[in-house]
């Protein structure tokens, strides 16, 4: 991928943000008096360190190009699905189905994404894998909780593989006046998703009062959503130049990312709560599992992908409606 000036600015901006965040956390940690504040800040420090790692890996993947990026997201899907199925009770009769799901369906789907075969990767999991999973499980002859087990595997595939893969699929879009610049759109999208998460967390921690859905996630507050959301929209609109959108469209897209990301996080929290766990796994120090960082992206990626594809494609699909 060509490292043009705007992409350099994006990367520099993120690195700058991380430097500031690391600095502030260190100062606050030195000043922390109470045990509780210390624990929170230790967690923030661990999260910031992990962010450094994630940003470096993601930037390298973007710079390597489409293959590297698609491979990275494929790996993330694999790890997220692994966490998802681990927390989902399956039975011995599902074992061979799961082998197919992890080692055939997931790689094949990402192969189609890499191949830019839109017609195939849009239906491969919702149609073919959807039908294959119950067929393979039925063959192994275990009827107990059959529909429940099958649906959970299908759900895992849709969320962890299908939805996540719409992020690297942004790279293949043929956008008006944006040829060869799609890496910036993906970079922008991921940054906005994660910044929305972080800002909602920060706003919620500092001035959160009114819980939105206390039984699902006690951390999600109206103050966090509105405060973090507005800041994210401002950042998204201010960086419109790196996107194929106008300033207003960039603001709208950011608002959409905030909303879908928020609701996605809520859905995934509901599942965690039902399973009686706090985190999806322990892959990333301070953050929990891969899915704990990917939950908002899962829900935002398909929506942003399709709106961009329909609204900004150089072949102007909208005119056909």
């Amino acid at each position, binding site marked *: 991928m060509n490292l043009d000036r705007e992409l350099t600015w994006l990367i520099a901006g993120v690195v700058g943000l991380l430097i500031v965040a690391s600095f502030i956390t260190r100062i606050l940690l030195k000043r922390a008096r109470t045990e509780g504040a210390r624990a929170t800040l230790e967690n923030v420090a661990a999260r910031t360190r992990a962010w450094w790692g994630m940003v470096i890996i993601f930037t390298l993947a973007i710079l390597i190009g489409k293959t590297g990026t698609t491979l990275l997201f494929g790996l993330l899907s*694999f790890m997220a699905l*692994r*966490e998802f*199925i*681990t927390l989902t009770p*399956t039975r*011995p009769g599902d*074992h*061979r189905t*799961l*082998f197919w799901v*992890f080692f055939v369906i997931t790689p094949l789907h990402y192969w189609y994404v890499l191949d830019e075969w839109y017609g195939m990767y849009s239906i491969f999991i919702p149609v073919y894998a959807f039908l294959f999973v119950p067929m393979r499980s039925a063959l192994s002859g275990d009827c107990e909780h059959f529909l429940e087990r099958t649906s959970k595997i299908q759900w895992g595939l849709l969320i962890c593989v299908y939805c996540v893969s719409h992020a690297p699929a942004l790279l293949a879009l043929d956008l008006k006046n944006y040829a060869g610049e799609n890496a910036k759109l993906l970079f922008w999208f991921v940054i906005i998703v994660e910044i929305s998460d972080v800002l909602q967390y920060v706003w919620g921690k500092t001035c959160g009062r009114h819980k939105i859905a206390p039984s699902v996630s006690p951390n999600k507050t109206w103050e966090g959503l509105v405060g973090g959301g507005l800041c994210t929209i401002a950042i998204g609109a201010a960086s419109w130049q790196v996107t194929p959108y106008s300033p207003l469209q960039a603001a709208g897209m950011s608002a959409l990312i905030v909303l879908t990301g928020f609701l996605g996080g809520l859905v995934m929290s509901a599942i965690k709560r039902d399973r*009686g*766990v706090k985190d999806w*796994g*322990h*892959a990333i120090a301070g953050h929990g599992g891969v899915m704990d960082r990917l939950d908002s992206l899962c829900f935002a990626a398909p929506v942003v992908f399709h709106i961009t594809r329909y609204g900004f494609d150089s072949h102007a699909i909208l005119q056909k409606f």
Partner: protein
Amino acid sequence: MALLQIESLEMISGLIAGSLRLATGALARWHGCGPELRQRIYFANHTSNLDGPILWASLPTPLRMKTRMVAAHDYWSVGKLRPWLAQRVFRAVLIERKKPTAECNPLDTMLQAMGEDHSLIIFPEGGRQTGPEPQPFKAGLFHLAKRRPEIELVPVWMENLNRILPKGEILPAPLLGSLVFGTPIRLEEGETKPDFLERARHSVICLRGICA
């Protein structure tokens, strides 16, 4: 030359331990005791052929070098790869579980393998189970505890490994496993064999709740 060979074997075994941990995402939690370098017997529930290797791989390197898993001779001597892994990498203590005779008594083999400074990994159920609850323990653990009363017996709960590689399957599903090390137990003064074996079994089962 011999030294070089030993060093490269150590490297290979470290590498294999690392990849085992990575492949199963195994998270080891030291709940009732710490990873201390002392003579111990780790005993765990048994549901998968991965159990022994994973428990071995989860130990920190200095402990791992001094810990040998006890495994079935009939399984680990088939083919080329398994004997190599068992003898060279895991340095497993292979025992005859089908028909113990006076000449090859598993207990003597295990005691000899422990010597002065080695720990053991054993699965007292005697074989892989498919049910949700661990089966009653075989007497071996009791006899070991009686012969070496000074040694700590550490219960270990192994979670999810039967979903990664269940009995009768060759291909794995890449789920995440986890292990919990519990509080060490010892044979009490005057404790009978059935009482001790049941207590040991319970000390493993009650670690399950911590796994979740």
